[in-house]
């Protein structure tokens, strides 16, 4: 009997391959045995794949902590230099998972930039909308699309059809996924995060970022915040794939959810609000620049 999609995802044991730029930076830092763990945390926090790898070990049964590890800083201090070096070495092996050249696949750099942009925007929005789990907003944004990376890396033959479809028909990626796979990248990301015992907040954000109303009441506002950040990141030009469709943001579940919590959102000039995000663009661009320098 052939395995279901879910079984195939949950069977993934290897680390997710890090973005080459981040990996190079990390490798360099790790040469120095006196490296500041906080710096290490900052660098890891720039890459969705490294972040999830580190969270996975910190939350594994091996450590058996009573509370989940929810931030990279916490994970890094807990694991220490030796363990982190071990993850990196294992990742060096995982890096060989490369898409064959000439095939349509997720543009890694664009994926990475979109993840960082969503994280940065989610952090900005979370403080503005007074979201309770503000401290996790960046990481939740960084990780929200991890399902796409998983699909592209581990089920590449299927996923390249999805990517092709978004370009051919200018449709949202999620529509293409449901047509080809019957599932969305959100669900897929959630499966692996649950399997890897990450804090439920992250898997809920991943699972529900296109279906905000399905999120638990407890996490709905942060899910909505990341969902809005995700859409605005794409609409500010930090998108990837072929989707360039327009959105009536005020009619989205994300916006409505936020508006319920923050009635003053009704008086927001959305166009001006988006135009004025230049400052955040600057943050994103400076992270990107750092990356290109290495």
């Amino acid at each position, binding site marked *: 009997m052939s395995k279901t999609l879910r079984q195939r995802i949950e069977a993934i044991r290897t680390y997710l391959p890090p973005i080459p730029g981040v990996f190079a930076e990390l490798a360099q830092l790790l040469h120095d045995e006196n490296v500041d763990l906080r710096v290490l945390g900052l660098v890891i926090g720039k890459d969705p794949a490294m972040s999830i790898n580190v969270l996975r070990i910190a939350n594994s049964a091996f450590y058996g902590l009573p509370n989940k590890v929810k931030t990279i800083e916490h994970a890094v201090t807990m694991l220490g230099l030796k363990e982190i070096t071990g993850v990196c070495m294992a990742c060096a092996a995982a890096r060989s998972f490369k898409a064959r050249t000439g095939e349509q696949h997720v543009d890694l750099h664009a994926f990475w930039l979109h993840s960082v942009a969503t994280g940065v925007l989610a952090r900005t929005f979370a403080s503005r909308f007074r979201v309770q789990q503000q401290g996790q907003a960046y990481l939740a944004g960084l990780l929200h699309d991890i399902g796409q990376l998983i699909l592209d890396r581990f089920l590449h033959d299927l996923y390249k059809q999805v990517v092709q479809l978004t370009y051919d028909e*200018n449709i949202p990626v999620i529509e293409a996924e449901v047509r080809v796979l019957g599932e969305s990248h959100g669900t897929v990301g959630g499966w692996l995060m649950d399997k890897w015992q990450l804090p439920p907040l992250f898997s809920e954000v991943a699972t529900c970022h296109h279906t905000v109303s399905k999120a638990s009441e407890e996490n709905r506002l942060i899910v909505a915040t990341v969902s809005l950040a995700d859409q*605005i990141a*794409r*609409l*500010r*030009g930090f*998108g990837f794939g072929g989707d*360039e*469709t*327009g*959105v*009536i*943001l*005020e*009619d989205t579940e994300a916006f409505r959810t936020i508006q319920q919590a923050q009635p003053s959102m009704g008086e927001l*000039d*959305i*166009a*001006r609000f*988006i*135009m004025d995000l230049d400052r955040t663009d600057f943050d994103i661009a400076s992270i990107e620049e750092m990356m290109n320098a290495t």
Partner: protein
Amino acid sequence: MQPEKSLTDTEFIALRDFIYKKTGILFSERNRYLLDARTREILSQARDKNAVSYIRSLCGPGGDPLEVNRLINKVTITETSFFRDPHQIAALTKNVIPEVAARHEQFGSRLLRIWSAGSSSGEEAYTVAILLAEHLKGRLSDWNITIFATDINEDAIEACKAGVYKPYTLRNVPRDLQEKYFLATSDGRFAVRDEIKRLVFAERSSLTDPAACKKYSGVDLILLRNVLIYFTTDAKTAVLQSCYENLRDNGYLFLGQSETAFGINHSFKLVTFVNAFAYKKPLPR
């Protein structure tokens, strides 16, 4: 050179009010220097070189409409170019034009009306015509398309009707499209080809005249880009109301890339595209 005299307060107010009444454009104290610079030549040729009596002569029974036009032509900012603002052009190309065309196909009506309001010399209207031709490919002749290009500035409308442009205003036109839709003239300019030119209908008309605006109703797309910048809130409100009425359901309005309709018109739905915005007329509920 002699520094020329600048407008006195009384002159400034008289000119400002007259222009506001005619165009909806309000020169604020901050933009006084602009009005000053733009009217200097005209006033230096006026009989007693005084703005107050000059305006009185325009308003009086012997007032010369051509002179009024001359003044308006001077004070309007007609800066424009083909394919202005690439993000808006992308939103039109990838989303708006395909959507509007598909809607017509679906209902079997191939009658498409578009309005470039405050079109200046016509680059915007011809740009849309080119985008449509590209989208409809060889089927252009199956469609009945009218793109209205209106402006209060007579000189600009004449330029639009002529349809011949200096190379600089074509700087953002992709090479292949330039070759396809323009003809080089012997004096180094570019003439819009006939298949494109006949889609555009240009005429002088003021946006502050609601009755005149009614002529451009039943449109699927309005481009009102970079026109409202100097309008007062009242004038903006009235113009946006005209636009709303003129649009068909699900039609789109584009303002300039840094303009918003927020706080002026609440009937539209803001659609966010990649680095571009449009206002959509929703279906009645």
